[in-house]
């Protein structure tokens, strides 16, 4: 581990983050609100700190980045980015303690969308834009973005990419990692732009359209309104947002193939079929569960049912209805959706469809070999055998995920939080969803979680976003051994 080298790259990332603060600053200046001073201060602190790191460790040679260093850079880099991204919130008037600001910032970057704020509409426009922008940056991955635009990361970019975008079956769209990162960001930006257009056509102001597109595409879920999307109560906006949440939950390499003129790409991909199929089934079940009990017309039931299901399963976390008033079965389905998550290679969180698919196939294989003890059977995805290594790492991942979920919920419960809230708050943060159930439901916020509990949840959000291994590895003593 070459620490000076790791710190040099992190310094670069921090400078990059500082530069990004210019955009909310422009909004702050345009609306002439009170966000200007905190933003300028944070910009100075961030760029200054980043520069001093870079200057201190300038002499290091950037060549090969080892696997271990890649993970360290990404895990520490994300923590640092969350830390510096919190400054505009902390220096502004709305957040009383630093841990609250840090929570909001990490919740943004990890595209969780859990908020501390009680009255969002009272916050200045500049800060709200920052809150949306950090979700957009975190969605496709701030490190992937820097691999795409910062030339110095060219050679070692691959290790960073692998650590930030872990996927059971990695796919490289282009021979070079830099081109792959660029293509992904272009596709991401393009779809976001399309959403901005559709939202403004529907009558949303450009500012709100930008903020909402910036939090839909990364499956983030921060809204500029207190009541989230329910504020608009419009079938048009609900439909547009449902479509874009689904797009965000699909593997971006499929979008790329689609844009390159292969319209059947979505259908051919078995994970995509699984994802869309399960969403459809869940929508039907939830709609019929709430039809008659909560909503009188089937149309209303479908509108709210489908929005909530898509919002949770893609791990976005917008709300148009208070699902805590729904029957227990629907609530439970939504809770389980938090674990399923979206596709690998999408901006969504959770365990990811492909892992669940692999685990289900593995279970079936076990049953099958009880019946035919001598059978040779491979686990296949889309007709291609998946190697034992991949299956093992997927099962390991799921074991860790559930284990860490259980451990963290016990920690939260030990601080005097009730049962449902403890379980749901951890599920919602480790899966990067946003709202949970109980005291942290869609109409509540996370402000009342005890001080230490917030730290636990911050940790959960990072775990979820970087898919466990990259973060947890820092806590394994073997990692630090020379």
């Amino acid at each position, binding site marked *: 581990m070459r620490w000076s080298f790791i710190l040099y790259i992190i310094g670069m990332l921090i400078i990059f983050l500082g530069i990004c603060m210019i955009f909310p600053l422009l909004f702050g200046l345009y609306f002439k609100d009170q966000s200007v001073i905190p933003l300028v201060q944070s910009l100075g602190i961030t760029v200054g700190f980043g520069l001093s790191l870079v200057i201190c460790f300038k002499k290091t040679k950037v060549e090969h980045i080892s*696997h271990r260093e890649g993970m360290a850079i990404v895990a520490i880099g994300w923590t640092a980015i969350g830390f510096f991204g919190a400054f505009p919130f902390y220096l502004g008037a709305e957040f009383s303690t630093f841990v609250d600001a840090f929570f909001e910032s990490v919740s943004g970057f990890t595209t969780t969308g859990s908020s501390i704020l009680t009255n969002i509409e009272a916050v200045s426009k500049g800060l709200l834009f920052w809150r949306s922008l950090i979700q957009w940056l975190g969605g496709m991955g701030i490190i992937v973005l820097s691999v795409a635009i910062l030339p110095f990361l*060219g*050679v070692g970019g*691959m290790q960073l990419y692998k650590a930030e975008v872990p996927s059971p079956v990695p796919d*490289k769209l*282009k*021979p*070079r*990692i830099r*081109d792959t990162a660029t293509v992904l960001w272009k596709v991401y930006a393009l779809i976001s732009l399309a959403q901005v257009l559709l939202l403004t056509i529907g009558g949303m102001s450009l500012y709100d359209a930008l903020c909402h597109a910036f939090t839909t595409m990364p499956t983030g879920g921060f809204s500029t309104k207190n009541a989230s999307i329910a504020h608009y109560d419009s079938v048009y906006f609900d439909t547009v947002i449902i479509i874009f949440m689904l797009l965000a939950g699909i593997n971006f390499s499929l979008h790329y193939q689609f844009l390159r003129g292969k319209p059947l790409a979505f259908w051919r991909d078995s994970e995509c079929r699984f994802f869309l199929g399960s969403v459809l089934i869940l929508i039907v079940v939830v709609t019929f569960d709430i039809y008659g009990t909560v909503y009188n017309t089937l149309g209303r039931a479908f509108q709210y049912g489908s929005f909530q299901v898509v919002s949770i399963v893609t791990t976005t976390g917008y709300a148009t209805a208070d699902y805590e008033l729904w029957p227990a079965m629907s609530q439970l389905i939504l809770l389980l959706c938090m674990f399923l998550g979206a596709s690998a290679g999408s901006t969504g969180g959770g365990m990811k469809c492909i892992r669940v698919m692999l685990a289900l196939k593995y279970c079936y294989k076990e049953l099958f070999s009880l019946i035919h003890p001598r059978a040779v059977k491979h686990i296949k995805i889309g007709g291609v055998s998946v190697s034992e290594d991949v299956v093992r790492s997927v099962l390991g991942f799921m074991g860790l995920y559930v284990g860490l979920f259980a451990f963290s919920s016990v920690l939260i419960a030990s601080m005097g939080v009730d049962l449902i809230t403890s379980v749901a708050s951890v599920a919602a943060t480790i899966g990067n969803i946003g709202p949970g159930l109980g005291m942290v439901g869609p109409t509540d916020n996370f402000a009342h979680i005890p001080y230490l509990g917030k730290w636990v949840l911050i940790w959960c959000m990072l775990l979820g976003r970087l898919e466990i291994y990259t973060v947890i590895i820092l806590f394994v003593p073997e990692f630090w051994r020379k």
Partner: protein
Amino acid sequence: MKIIIVGAGEVGFHIASHLAQENKDVVVIDKDFAAIRRVSDNIDVQVVSGSGSSPVVLKEAGIKEAEILLAVTDSDETNLMACLAANLISPTTKKLCRIRHADYDEYHEVFRDQAPHIDTIINPEIEVVKTIERLIHVPGAVEVEEFADGRVNFVGIHLDKSARLNGVCLSDIYAKIGKQSPLIVAVVRDEELIIPRGNHVLRAGDLIYFISEQEKLMGFLSIFDKHVEPIDRVLIIGGGRIGFRLAFLLEKKSIYTKIIEKNPDRCAKLAEKLNKAIVLHGDGSDQDLLRAENIQDMGIVVTLTNDEETNIITSLLAKRMGVRRTITKISKFAYLPLMSMIGIELVVSPRLSAVNSILQHIRKGRVLSTKAIKGEQAEVMEAVALETSDIVGKPIKNISIPKGALVTSIIRNNTVIIPTGSSVIEPNDRIIIFAKKQAIPKIEKILAVKLEYF
């Protein structure tokens, strides 16, 4: 530029990493999962797992957009099949194929003119034999490369402790020796390659690369206290394909040659094909055999068995038994940097030769030949200065030559010019450029024709 490499073995791996560092789009195909894994973990390239001779796999790798296909698996047959398949799917792709078996030697032309239309056939064994021949003839040299049809030599030597230039500053060489020194292009010290300036002090153990005209070479070598001793006896250990080719060449030159081979059947074959050379059946690391064959009187011992560890050990043994010079064949690139440390100076590598010939064909512009030097930290390229390129018609000091690169000589109508800052490159001059790895893409750019971009 997109390049598809079939075969992720030692050659495929190194070409891939070389090209990836030059920002080319590389796709590597191999059927061995572990080999593919090694590539994707270490190099920034795309990988496809599958057989490279399969049209489906080639299509998946994007053969249609590829400019060059390199078939470098260990099997000649797979390489040929890959080229054939590529020829069917994408006839415009340039095909380079490694074919090692001597039986194919006479069909190289046929493969070019008829299907599979292979543009270049690479036979590293022929190259290696040529390299060994050059090393035998240049005393003290660790590396000898020829440019401009042999008129210009690029030579690497180790500076001995007893050499007069030990501890001398480059600008003082004339004062010290009383003779003009050659253009010293690079010095490798502690594994690091530096382009020296006038104030650079030479030290014992430095690996010095210099450029010289053919006629002046012996004179320059004497400046570094390397003296000519004519070689008349050679012992070859290992009678494989390279061993045979070398023995055949040496006996034609009337050099007294002995060749030791372990396998009796192979010995019989060698004895059948060779006339003057003495074929000995036995183990090359057998001290009694070596002593019985008067190894201490041999001018040079060449170890060419298929097992590189045996080659290394045998070379060390030969040195201990009194042989002044040994040439060792090594395949694993990882061993190359270790060799000078354990006292083995002359090393040849068929794989490095293959890498060299392949690189030459990938370079843009009118590049005639390219040689990667020790550890692949730099390359020497020979190119034609095109009329429309950026380098002609102005003094060299005004050309924006990238950092880490050097124009080492200009060849104009059979005269070799070692340039100074005010020399001017004229159209159709052949130039020899030395460039560090980082400077290569930029060098390619300035060599290329400007018109290409219109």
